[in-house]
Protein backbone atom coordinates (compact mmCIF):
# COMPACT_ATOMS: atom_id res chain seq x y z
CA UNK A 1 0.00 0.00 0.00
CA UNK A 2 1.19 3.49 -0.74
CA UNK A 3 1.42 6.00 2.06
CA UNK A 4 -0.40 9.09 0.86
CA UNK A 5 0.95 12.35 2.21
CA UNK A 6 -0.04 15.95 1.64
CA UNK A 7 2.24 18.33 -0.23
CA UNK A 8 4.12 19.61 2.82
CA UNK A 9 3.26 16.79 5.22
CA UNK A 10 1.69 19.07 7.85
CA UNK A 11 4.48 21.62 8.00
CA UNK A 12 3.83 24.44 10.44
CA UNK A 13 5.25 27.83 11.38
CA UNK A 14 4.81 30.09 14.39
CA UNK A 15 4.87 33.75 13.48
CA UNK A 16 2.50 36.39 14.78
CA UNK A 17 -0.10 33.89 13.64
CA UNK A 18 0.23 30.14 13.42
CA UNK A 19 0.49 28.75 9.88
CA UNK A 20 -0.22 25.06 9.36
CA UNK A 21 -0.49 22.87 6.33
CA UNK A 22 -3.59 20.91 7.23
CA UNK A 23 -2.71 17.55 5.72
CA UNK A 24 -4.77 15.50 3.31
CA UNK A 25 -8.36 16.55 2.69
CA UNK A 26 -10.94 14.84 0.56
CA UNK A 27 -12.36 17.18 -2.09
CA UNK A 28 -14.92 16.63 -4.79
CA UNK A 29 -15.74 19.18 -7.43
CA UNK A 30 -19.47 18.93 -8.07
CA UNK A 31 -20.79 20.80 -11.08
CA UNK A 32 -24.38 21.13 -12.12
CA UNK A 33 -27.37 23.40 -11.63
CA UNK A 34 -27.08 24.42 -7.97
CA UNK A 35 -30.75 25.37 -8.04
CA UNK A 36 -31.65 21.71 -8.55
CA UNK A 37 -32.98 19.95 -5.44
CA UNK A 38 -31.33 16.68 -6.49
CA UNK A 39 -27.90 18.27 -6.78
CA UNK A 40 -28.33 20.03 -3.46
CA UNK A 41 -29.42 16.84 -1.73
CA UNK A 42 -26.52 14.88 -3.21
CA UNK A 43 -24.06 17.47 -1.89
CA UNK A 44 -25.54 17.94 1.57
CA UNK A 45 -26.01 14.19 1.86
CA UNK A 46 -22.30 13.42 1.59
CA UNK A 47 -20.96 16.55 3.32
CA UNK A 48 -23.38 16.50 6.25
CA UNK A 49 -23.77 20.29 6.31
CA UNK A 50 -26.44 22.67 4.99
CA UNK A 51 -26.27 24.05 1.47
CA UNK A 52 -24.19 27.26 1.60
CA UNK A 53 -25.50 30.53 0.21
CA UNK A 54 -23.79 32.30 -2.66
CA UNK A 55 -20.25 33.29 -1.61
CA UNK A 56 -20.32 31.19 1.54
CA UNK A 57 -19.03 27.91 2.94
CA UNK A 58 -20.44 25.68 5.64
CA UNK A 59 -18.01 23.38 7.35
CA UNK A 60 -17.71 21.15 10.37
CA UNK A 61 -14.23 19.78 11.06
CA UNK A 62 -13.05 18.04 7.87
CA UNK A 63 -16.39 18.15 6.07
CA UNK A 64 -18.07 21.00 4.34
CA UNK A 65 -19.52 22.62 1.24
CA UNK A 66 -18.18 25.72 -0.46
CA UNK A 67 -20.02 27.79 -3.08
CA UNK A 68 -17.61 28.14 -6.00
CA UNK A 69 -19.89 29.57 -8.72
CA UNK A 70 -23.56 29.23 -9.74
CA UNK A 71 -22.75 25.82 -11.23
CA UNK A 72 -19.99 24.56 -8.96
CA UNK A 73 -19.72 23.34 -5.40
CA UNK A 74 -16.66 22.12 -3.55
CA UNK A 75 -17.49 19.13 -1.38
CA UNK A 76 -14.98 18.57 1.43
CA UNK A 77 -14.74 15.47 3.56
CA UNK A 78 -12.15 13.23 5.22
CA UNK A 79 -9.60 12.00 2.68
CA UNK A 80 -10.54 8.35 3.09
CA UNK A 81 -14.26 8.97 2.48
CA UNK A 82 -14.01 10.25 -1.08
CA UNK A 83 -14.65 7.04 -3.01
CA UNK A 84 -17.70 6.16 -0.97
CA UNK A 85 -19.03 9.72 -1.34
CA UNK A 86 -18.50 9.66 -5.11
CA UNK A 87 -20.37 6.37 -5.33
CA UNK A 88 -23.23 7.86 -3.32
CA UNK A 89 -23.35 10.97 -5.54
CA UNK A 90 -23.31 8.84 -8.68
CA UNK A 91 -26.19 6.75 -7.38
CA UNK A 92 -28.19 9.77 -6.25
CA UNK A 93 -27.72 11.74 -9.49
CA UNK A 94 -28.24 8.94 -12.00
CA UNK A 95 -29.76 10.45 -15.14
CA UNK A 96 -29.04 14.04 -14.07
CA UNK A 97 -26.75 16.46 -15.90
CA UNK A 98 -23.81 16.87 -13.53
CA UNK A 99 -20.12 16.20 -13.03
CA UNK A 100 -18.38 14.97 -9.88
CA UNK A 101 -14.61 14.51 -9.76
CA UNK A 102 -12.15 13.65 -7.01
CA UNK A 103 -9.72 16.57 -6.84
CA UNK A 104 -8.25 15.76 -3.40
CA UNK A 105 -4.73 15.20 -4.72
CA UNK A 106 -4.77 18.39 -6.76
CA UNK A 107 -5.09 20.60 -3.70
CA UNK A 108 -3.32 21.76 -0.57
CA UNK A 109 -5.07 23.08 2.54
CA UNK A 110 -3.67 25.56 5.05
CA UNK A 111 -4.99 26.98 8.29
CA UNK A 112 -3.86 30.22 9.85
CA UNK A 113 -4.97 31.06 13.36
CA UNK A 114 -4.38 33.87 15.80
CA UNK A 115 -5.39 37.48 16.18
CA UNK A 116 -3.56 38.62 13.04
CA UNK A 117 -5.05 36.06 10.65
CA UNK A 118 -7.05 38.71 8.78
CA UNK A 119 -3.97 40.81 8.35
CA UNK A 120 -1.92 37.96 6.87
CA UNK A 121 -4.60 37.41 4.22
CA UNK A 122 -4.93 41.13 3.58
CA UNK A 123 -1.21 41.34 2.80
CA UNK A 124 -1.47 38.67 0.12
CA UNK A 125 -4.92 38.90 -1.45
CA UNK A 126 -6.79 41.84 -3.05
CA UNK A 127 -9.67 41.37 -0.62
CA UNK A 128 -11.10 43.71 2.01
CA UNK A 129 -10.45 41.73 5.20
CA UNK A 130 -11.95 44.23 7.65
CA UNK A 131 -14.42 42.73 10.10
CA UNK A 132 -17.34 44.53 8.46
CA UNK A 133 -16.47 43.29 4.98
CA UNK A 134 -15.40 39.69 5.54
CA UNK A 135 -17.29 37.65 8.09
CA UNK A 136 -17.01 34.09 9.36
CA UNK A 137 -18.79 31.79 6.92
CA UNK A 138 -17.91 33.81 3.84
CA UNK A 139 -15.94 32.01 1.13
CA UNK A 140 -13.77 33.85 -1.36
CA UNK A 141 -11.97 32.69 -4.47
CA UNK A 142 -9.21 35.10 -5.40
CA UNK A 143 -5.49 35.20 -5.98
CA UNK A 144 -2.78 34.95 -3.35
CA UNK A 145 0.18 36.92 -4.68
CA UNK A 146 0.63 35.20 -8.05
CA UNK A 147 -1.49 32.06 -7.73
CA UNK A 148 -5.20 31.32 -7.44
CA UNK A 149 -6.44 30.55 -3.95
CA UNK A 150 -9.68 30.31 -2.01
CA UNK A 151 -10.34 30.79 1.65
CA UNK A 152 -13.03 30.96 4.27
CA UNK A 153 -13.16 31.86 7.91
CA UNK A 154 -14.54 29.75 10.72
CA UNK A 155 -16.40 31.11 13.74
CA UNK A 156 -13.09 31.19 15.63
CA UNK A 157 -11.70 33.61 12.99
CA UNK A 158 -9.14 31.04 11.87
CA UNK A 159 -8.75 31.20 8.09
CA UNK A 160 -8.74 28.04 5.98
CA UNK A 161 -6.98 28.33 2.63
CA UNK A 162 -7.08 26.08 -0.40
CA UNK A 163 -4.49 26.26 -3.17
CA UNK A 164 -3.33 23.97 -5.91
CA UNK A 165 -0.96 21.31 -4.64
CA UNK A 166 1.63 22.23 -7.26
CA UNK A 167 2.09 25.65 -5.60
CA UNK A 168 1.78 24.49 -1.98
CA UNK A 169 5.34 25.37 -1.10
CA UNK A 170 5.01 28.80 -2.69
CA UNK A 171 1.82 29.47 -0.72
CA UNK A 172 3.37 28.24 2.54
CA UNK A 173 6.37 30.54 2.01
CA UNK A 174 4.06 33.46 1.27
CA UNK A 175 2.12 32.84 4.47
CA UNK A 176 5.28 32.45 6.53
CA UNK A 177 6.67 35.68 5.17
CA UNK A 178 3.42 37.57 5.76
CA UNK A 179 3.28 36.22 9.32
CA UNK A 180 6.90 36.95 10.20
CA UNK A 181 7.28 38.42 13.71
CA UNK A 182 7.84 42.16 13.54
CA UNK A 183 5.91 42.54 10.28
CA UNK A 184 2.58 43.28 11.96
CA UNK A 185 0.81 46.23 10.37
CA UNK A 186 -1.97 46.49 12.93
CA UNK A 187 -4.36 48.27 10.59
CA UNK A 188 -7.14 45.71 10.91
CA UNK A 189 -6.71 45.15 14.66
CA UNK A 190 -6.24 48.62 16.13
Amino acid at each position, binding site marked *: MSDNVSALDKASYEGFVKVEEAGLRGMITLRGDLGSVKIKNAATGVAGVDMPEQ*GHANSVEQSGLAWM*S*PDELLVMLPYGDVNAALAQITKHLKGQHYLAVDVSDARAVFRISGAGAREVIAKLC*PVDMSQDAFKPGQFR*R*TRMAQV*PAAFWMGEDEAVHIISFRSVAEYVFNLLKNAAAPGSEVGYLNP
Partner: protein
Amino acid sequence: MLILTCPVCGVTGEETEFHGGGEAHLKRFGPGSGDTEFHGYLFTRENPKGVHFERWRHNNGCGKWFHAARCTMTLEIFGTYLAQTYEPPQHIKDAITAKRPGWKWREFS
Protein backbone atom coordinates in the same frame (compact mmCIF):
# COMPACT_ATOMS: atom_id res chain seq x y z
CA MET B 1 -7.14 50.72 -11.01
CA LEU B 2 -10.48 49.28 -12.09
CA ILE B 3 -12.90 47.99 -9.47
CA LEU B 4 -15.19 45.42 -11.09
CA THR B 5 -18.20 43.56 -9.71
CA CYS B 6 -18.67 40.13 -11.23
CA PRO B 7 -22.36 39.80 -12.15
CA VAL B 8 -22.14 36.01 -11.87
CA CYS B 9 -20.77 35.48 -8.35
CA GLY B 10 -21.35 38.97 -6.95
CA VAL B 11 -17.73 39.53 -5.86
CA THR B 12 -16.35 43.05 -6.11
CA GLY B 13 -12.63 43.00 -6.70
CA GLU B 14 -9.85 44.97 -8.30
CA GLU B 15 -8.64 44.28 -11.80
CA THR B 16 -5.81 41.88 -10.95
CA GLU B 17 -8.41 39.32 -9.89
CA PHE B 18 -9.89 39.54 -13.40
CA HIS B 19 -8.59 39.33 -16.93
CA GLY B 20 -9.56 41.59 -19.80
CA GLY B 21 -10.90 39.86 -22.89
CA GLY B 22 -11.05 42.70 -25.42
CA GLU B 23 -13.96 44.43 -27.04
CA ALA B 24 -17.49 43.21 -26.32
CA HIS B 25 -20.40 42.54 -28.68
CA LEU B 26 -18.31 41.49 -31.67
CA LYS B 27 -20.22 39.60 -34.29
CA ARG B 28 -18.30 36.66 -35.66
CA PHE B 29 -17.82 36.42 -39.42
CA GLY B 30 -16.42 33.01 -40.28
CA PRO B 31 -16.47 30.67 -43.27
CA GLY B 32 -18.64 31.98 -46.11
CA SER B 33 -18.32 35.64 -45.18
CA GLY B 34 -16.73 38.23 -47.46
CA ASP B 35 -13.18 39.51 -47.11
CA THR B 36 -14.28 42.90 -45.81
CA GLU B 37 -16.49 41.43 -43.10
CA PHE B 38 -13.87 38.91 -42.06
CA HIS B 39 -11.22 41.61 -41.95
CA GLY B 40 -13.51 43.75 -39.80
CA TYR B 41 -14.21 40.88 -37.42
CA LEU B 42 -10.52 40.11 -37.02
CA PHE B 43 -8.94 43.53 -36.95
CA THR B 44 -11.32 46.47 -36.64
CA ARG B 45 -11.69 47.59 -33.05
CA GLU B 46 -13.00 50.63 -31.30
CA ASN B 47 -10.44 52.70 -29.45
CA PRO B 48 -12.57 55.31 -27.73
CA LYS B 49 -11.69 58.02 -25.28
CA GLY B 50 -14.69 57.59 -23.02
CA VAL B 51 -17.47 55.02 -23.02
CA HIS B 52 -16.31 51.52 -23.92
CA PHE B 53 -17.69 47.98 -23.73
CA GLU B 54 -15.41 45.08 -22.90
CA ARG B 55 -15.40 41.41 -22.05
CA TRP B 56 -13.81 40.41 -18.78
CA ARG B 57 -13.22 37.07 -17.12
CA HIS B 58 -13.25 36.48 -13.37
CA ASN B 59 -10.20 34.25 -13.78
CA ASN B 60 -9.10 34.19 -10.14
CA GLY B 61 -12.66 33.84 -8.93
CA CYS B 62 -15.69 32.03 -10.30
CA GLY B 63 -14.06 31.70 -13.72
CA LYS B 64 -16.98 33.16 -15.69
CA TRP B 65 -16.97 35.64 -18.55
CA PHE B 66 -19.04 38.80 -18.32
CA HIS B 67 -19.34 42.24 -19.88
CA ALA B 68 -18.36 45.61 -18.48
CA ALA B 69 -19.23 49.15 -19.57
CA ARG B 70 -16.57 51.61 -18.51
CA CYS B 71 -14.91 54.93 -19.26
CA THR B 72 -11.41 54.59 -20.70
CA MET B 73 -10.51 58.08 -19.53
CA THR B 74 -11.63 58.01 -15.88
CA LEU B 75 -11.56 54.20 -15.34
CA GLU B 76 -15.08 54.53 -13.98
CA ILE B 77 -17.22 51.39 -14.29
CA PHE B 78 -20.78 52.17 -15.38
CA GLY B 79 -21.91 48.63 -14.83
CA THR B 80 -21.26 44.96 -15.48
CA TYR B 81 -23.68 42.47 -17.00
CA LEU B 82 -23.95 38.86 -18.06
CA ALA B 83 -22.23 37.69 -21.24
CA GLN B 84 -25.34 35.96 -22.59
CA THR B 85 -26.60 38.98 -24.54
CA TYR B 86 -26.08 40.64 -27.92
CA GLU B 87 -26.29 44.17 -26.63
CA PRO B 88 -25.99 46.14 -23.39
CA PRO B 89 -29.17 45.87 -21.29
CA GLN B 90 -31.28 49.01 -20.86
CA HIS B 91 -30.26 49.63 -17.25
CA ILE B 92 -26.61 49.75 -18.31
CA LYS B 93 -27.40 52.16 -21.15
CA ASP B 94 -29.37 54.31 -18.70
CA ALA B 95 -26.50 54.32 -16.20
CA ILE B 96 -24.13 55.54 -18.93
CA THR B 97 -26.58 58.16 -20.17
CA ALA B 98 -26.90 59.54 -16.64
CA LYS B 99 -23.17 60.26 -16.59
CA ARG B 100 -22.29 60.73 -20.27
CA PRO B 101 -25.38 62.19 -21.99
CA GLY B 102 -25.30 61.70 -25.75
CA TRP B 103 -22.78 58.84 -25.65
CA LYS B 104 -22.44 56.63 -28.71
CA TRP B 105 -20.48 53.41 -29.25
CA ARG B 106 -20.72 51.45 -32.50
CA GLU B 107 -24.47 51.03 -33.10
CA PHE B 108 -25.43 51.61 -29.46
CA SER B 109 -26.34 54.91 -27.85
